Structure formats: structure tokens, C-alpha cells
């Protein structure tokens, strides 16, 4: 009896091993450059109405408020214009999309169009696997290069082997812009500061009056990245920040400029300029406190615009953090929403490109504005006055001066955790500024060494 049981166990195990397919995971992805070249040559602008019956499967994360409204409206309009095209939409949350995309796109039933987040963690990995289709031919045919600034297009560029970021082929285009700037309470702040120094004086004054100068919650980790980069842009040159994110040349995090930024931020924390116990306060509770009139400032992204305008009405304003000198052209952390790309496995890439063109053309920009979104592309349309207008103006001037600096967490596949964890340690004074830049650089170089 005992022997039979053991025999059965060995048998099952052997069977299982056999079935689990002991091959090299990932298989053969072939020569990316050659495939990309061929894909470019086969791409063309087509008349969608004559393309026959096509079903486009689209994976997006446009699930919140205005985002959901605009994509539903545009999808409906596209299908009404081209009844031969059926759009099968798979909507997911941001996190869900990012974590499942790789598996979906490399699987046998890959979607046609996906929103693949910028940077090395998602888009870089997909490009490396040859899973996304280069779109420069489409960009030329549809005139996309006039629609977006170079800074914005570069964020969606990779070399075909996925090693160089910020240059090479275009792998997606985005609908919405975002800026991480300063929201302020007009009851408490009478005039917008003209210099960074003036802003700091306002912080000191607010503190003296017993207020929380900057509402800040870092329990969710990403808030700290935004605070750090807002200060970093005061010390580090915008091109240096971009080169770091794109891993160009001998980019390093361990620089005097970053140390100055870290020192300044730590100083703010120790002077009590942030919400007390910020490391244990959630991101949402922090901005909600600001919206209830607690404290003059909030460093936050324009994704909060609709919510803040809704709660505070005409009391809330927005500005881009001013430079040390009053005359500096605006520079700010910001970027664009997740880019829409086409998968290599799509059977109708030309129709997919036409769809992407449709949801980013000047008419789409009007839909975006009407649904309280900030269009990333150039547009003549104007939002209604108020907070949206202020954000819109800031976006225009940032684009005109090419002043946007990208999110640091695009830099390596693990950088989100590296930098956010490091900022959590830096702010309460657990690490010194020089140790902060050194450890972050150590994490960064672990990846750049593999390039």
C-alpha cells in the first residue's frame, strides 16, 4: 500500500514536470530592429470606412470621472462615424492595467490598442519584448508632430531594443496633460509668489500663524516624489533631470544639486511646514484637509483639479512653483496621461492608428475640455473660467517654454519604490541628504549597469 502511494506521487510529479513545459521562459522574441523596420514600412493611413468589418480590442484605464466620460463619448462618436468598426473596450484601474498588461500583450489574444504607461517599468519592458508597434509612419501621415510638443513626444520614445529612453521610435501618444504644481487657498494667500524665496517666506508666515503651510500625506508613497521634484527643479537644470530619467550619458543622482534639494526639503519638514505625521497620513486625506480650508498650500497634480474646484469653488487657485529668479521661464514636474499604443500582434494596426488619431485630434481636444480634462495636444478651445482656466494657461506656458520635467519613477523598473521609500526616510531626518542621494544612486546604477 505504502509503496503504491509513493509510486503514484512520483508519477504525478513527473507528469506535472512534463506538462509544466520546461522550456526557457519568454521564448524567442526575434530581432526587434528588423521587425520594427518592417512594421514601419507596412504602416499607412487608411480610409477606415473602407477597411471592412474590424473589431478593435482596447485596454484603457480611463475609469474616473471626466476620463470615463470623454472616452465613452469619443468611442461612441467613432463607432457612429465608422459603423464597420466595433470597439471592444476593457477598462481597468491604473494599477490593474500596469500589472496585467505585460501578460496580456505577450499572450495569444493580445488586445489591439493599449495604454502603456511611460517609462522603463511598463513601456520600456514592452518595447524590449518587441510587443509594441513603432508609430512614426503614422505620426508623419497624421501630422502628430504638430499636435504635441517635442518634450511630450520624447516621453513616449524608445530605441527598438528598449535600451534608450526618450529617443528613437514613437510608441504611443497621450490625450491629457498633467502638471504637478501648487494649489493655493485664495482666502489665505493674497498674491501668487513671484520667486521661490517669496514662497518660502509665505510658508514661514503661515507656520507662525499656527497653520499647516503645506498639506501633505505620504502614506501612499508617491506624494513624496512630487514634493521632492518640485524642490529639485529649483536646483537642478531641467535637462539634467531629463537626462537622468532617460539615463543619458553619465547621469547620476548623487549630485550637489540633488543634495541641495534634499537638504531644503528636509529643512521644510523639520520646520514643520508639512502636515504633522505626514508619513502616516494618506494622500487623499491630505488634499481633502486642504480643500476644507486647512492651510494655504497643496503641492499636487492637476488630476485633483476637478475635485478641488468642486469643493472649494472660486477659493482655489493654481500656480507653477516660481524659480529662484523672478524672470525664469516656468519649469515644473509634469507630463502626460498614459500613451495609447498599438500592439505588434494587432491584426488591424492601420485602423487602430486611425482610432488613436481620432481620440487625439482637435475635435477630441474640445471633448476633453468639455469633460473637464486638460488636453495635452495643442488646441484653440478654451476652458471655462476658474481653476481649469488657470491650469490650462500654466500648461500652455510650460509647453511653449518646453519646461516640463518627467517623473523620476520612469527611470528604472524599480525606481518608484527606490525613490519613494528613500524620500520617506529623508523627510523625518532618518537619512542625511548625502546618504539619500548616495543610496538612490546605488539603486539607479544597479539598473543602468545592465544597459
Amino acid at each position, binding site marked *: 500500500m505504502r509503496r503504491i502511494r509513493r509510486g503514484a506521487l512520483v508519477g*504525478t510529479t513527473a507528469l506535472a514536470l512534463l506538462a509544466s513545459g*520546461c522550456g526557457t*521562459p519568454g521564448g524567442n522574441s526575434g530581432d526587434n530592429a528588423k521587425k520594427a523596420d518592417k512594421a514601419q514600412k507596412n504602416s499607412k493611413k487608411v480610409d477606415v470606412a473602407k477597411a471592412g468589418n474590424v473589431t478593435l480590442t482596447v485596454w484603457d484605464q480611463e475609469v474616473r470621472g471626466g476620463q470615463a466620460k470623454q472616452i465613452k463619448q469619443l468611442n461612441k462618436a467613432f463607432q457612429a462615424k465608422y459603423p464597420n468598426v466595433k470597439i471592444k473596450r476593457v477598462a481597468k484601474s491604473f494599477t490593474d492595467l500596469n500589472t496585467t498588461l505585460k501578460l496580456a500583450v505577450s499572450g495569444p489574444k493580445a488586445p489591439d490598442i493599449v495604454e502603456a504607461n511611460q517609462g522603463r517599468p511598463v513601456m520600456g519592458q514592452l518595447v*524590449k519584448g518587441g510587443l509594441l508597434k513603432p508609430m512614426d509612419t503614422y505620426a508623419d501621415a497624421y501630422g502628430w508632430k504638430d499636435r504635441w510638443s517635442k518634450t511630450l513626444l520624447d516621453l513616449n520614445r524608445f530605441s527598438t531594443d528598449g535600451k534608450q529612453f526618450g529617443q528613437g521610435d514613437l510608441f504611443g501618444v497621450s490625450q491629457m496633460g498633467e502638471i504637478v504644481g501648487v494649489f493655493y487657498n485664495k482666502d489665505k494667500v493674497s498674491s501668487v509668489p513671484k520667486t521661490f524665496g517669496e514662497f518660502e517666506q509665505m510658508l514661514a508666515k503661515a507656520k507662525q500663524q499656527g497653520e499647516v503651510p503645506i498639506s501633505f500625506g505620504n502614506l501612499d508613497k508617491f506624494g513624496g516624489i512630487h514634493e521632492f521634484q518640485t524642490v529639485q527643479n529649483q536646483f537642478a537644470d531641467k535637462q539634467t533631470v531629463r537626462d537622468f530619467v532617460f539615463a543619458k550619458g553619465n547621469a547620476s543622482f548623487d549630485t550637489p544639486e540633488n543634495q541641495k534639494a534634499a537638504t531644503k526639503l528636509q529643512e521644510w519638514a523639520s520646520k514643520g511646514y508639512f502636515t504633522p505625521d505626514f*508619513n*502616516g497620513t494618506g494622500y487623499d486625506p491630505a488634499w481633502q484637509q486642504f480643500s476644507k480650508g486647512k492651510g494655504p498650500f497643496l503641492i499636487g497634480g492637476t488630476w485633483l483639479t476637478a475635485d478641488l474646484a468642486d469643493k472649494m469653488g472660486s477659493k482655489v487657485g493654481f500656480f507653477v512653483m516660481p524659480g529662484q529668479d523672478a524672470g525664469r521661464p516656468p519649469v515644473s514636474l509634469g507630463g502626460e496621461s498614459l500613451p495609447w499604443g498599438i500592439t505588434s500582434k494587432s491584426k488591424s494596426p492601420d485602423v487602430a492608428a486611425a482610432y488613436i488619431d481620432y481620440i487625439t485630434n482637435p475635435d477630441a481636444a474640445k471633448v476633453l475640455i468639455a469633460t473637464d480634462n486638460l488636453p495635452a495636444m495643442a488646441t484653440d478651445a478654451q476652458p471655462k473660467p476658474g481653476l481649469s482656466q488657470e491650469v490650462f494657461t500654466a500648461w500652455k506656458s510650460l509647453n511653449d517654454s518646453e519646461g516640463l520635467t518627467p517623473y523620476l519613477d520612469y527611470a528604472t523598473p524599480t525606481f518608484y519604490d527606490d525613490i519613494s521609500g*528613500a524620500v*520617506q526616510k529623508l523627510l523625518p531626518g532618518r537619512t542625511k541628504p548625502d546618504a539619500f542621494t548616495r543610496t538612490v544612486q546605488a539603486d539607479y546604477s544597479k539598473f543602468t549597469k545592465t544597459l
Partner: protein
Amino acid sequence: MDAPPPGEPRRIGYLYILPGLIVFVLFVLLPLLHSAWLSLFTWDGVTPGVWAGLANYKSVVSDPQLRSAFLHALVLVAFYAVLPIGIGLLLAAAMSRTHVRGLALFRTVLFLPQVIALVVVAVMWRMIYAPDGGLLNRGLSAIGLGSLGQDWLGSFSLALPSVGLIGTWVMYGLAMVLFTAGVQKIPQSLYDAARIDGAGPVREFVAVTLPGLRNEIAVALTLTTIQALRSFDLVYITTGGGPGDATTVPAYEVYNRAFRGGDVGTASAIGICVATLIFVLTFLINRVAERETAR
């Protein structure tokens, strides 16, 4: 010719377990072996993997971040397993001495945390722990202990115990239900005998209740230890491993590396290590319990 044993032929037994076996092989054994296989590669999830041998396992041991993740998991065992069992035993001991009215009601109420989805529990506790306006700090200041208010999830020393205490809250109900049920099965005559011999409450607990609950303790210890070692949801939702990496645990690292960091090999290696650790610990727990029973 040997007469076959009476009844159906032995081999037909395999037919009976076949449906279960198929499900087990497809959804447990194959994925497990596949992970073991993946753990031998350096693989980003998209491009072809590179054979790495045991290098991923080496990094599980040598990477200080992973080492601390395993250490955190062991700390959580104290909060998920040891503490709830202590509380459960205390409650069971109290109930063994007195007849509680409405026992069923109390049992249901105390068991409730077990029934709620962990995600809900985590979101709720995040609100309770909120430094400004959270229930805990507000409650402390309401009774004049405002100075004891803390940045529960944001402090480097308190974050892990705070997460652990949520686990305690979830788990003690399970331990208590197991133990109160077990206590009722201990013959009353043993308690009477102990009392005649002059045993006090402590002596009675050690000499009668504790040995009588040996099997239940083993079951509770097994279940809660497994929960502690594979805990992911609580950490993911309350702290995301922070502040810094003060609350990362192996299961969180598996998720992080496999789905976000593009390091499927190490993620699989961590997973296999956790599985092995769980296997060894549960084996030991049951071994000890069985030996005691045999004696």
C-alpha cells in the same frame, strides 16, 4: 491463485480521487513546479529568460532588503499567531470556569473580524490609525491620553507592530472559537478532580485546559502562522511596505518584483522560499502536537 482482497479492487480508488487530483495537479502542483522552474532564470517577463541556476536563491539570502522582509514576516508571526492564541486561551480559560449566558452571541461577535474581507479590514484600520482625526488618536485624547497619540503607520518603529495588531484583531476570533469549542469537550470530571486536589485557576488551566486543547492549539497555530507568512493584503493597503521599507514582507516583494519590477526569477525564488518555510513550520507544529498526544 491468490484470492483478491474482498470488496472492490484497490486500484479503483484512484478513479475516485481522480477529479480532485486533476484539479489539484492543474491549479496547485503545476503552478508550483512552474514557479520553481522560473526561479532558476533571470527573467523580466517579456524577453527570453537567461539561465541563472541558484543565483536568485543566493540573492534571497544576501539581499538585505529581502532578508529584512523575511524578518518582518517572523515578527508578524508573533502578532498573527502567538498573540491571538494567547488571547484565545485566556478567553477559553475564563469560559471554562464560568457558565456564560449568551455564549453563542459573544462567540459570533468575537468571530466577526474573521468574516470580513481583509481588504475591507485594511482600509478600515488605515482610517482608525490616521494620525489626524483617526479613531485611535481621537479616542486617546478623549480620555485625556492625547499625548500618547502616535503616527501609527508612518513611524519607522511603530508601523510594523501597527500592521501586526490588525492581524491580531483578525485572528484572535478564530483561535477563540476553536478553543471554546475544545474546552467544552474536556470532561467536567477532570475539572472536578483538579478542584478536589486543591488546584487554583492557574494550576487548573495548566494541568487540565492546556493539555486538553493541544490539538486545537496545533490547528490554530498552523492556520495563523500560514496567514502571517503569506500576508500581503494588509501591508499592500495600509503602508505599501513603507515607511522606507519598514513593513515589506516576502509576499509583497513577490508581487512587487513579478508584476512591477520585471524580475520574475527572484519573485519566484522568494515564493518558493515562503512556501518551503510554511511547509517546514507546519510540519514541525504538527509533529510536536502529535508526539505530545502520543505520549
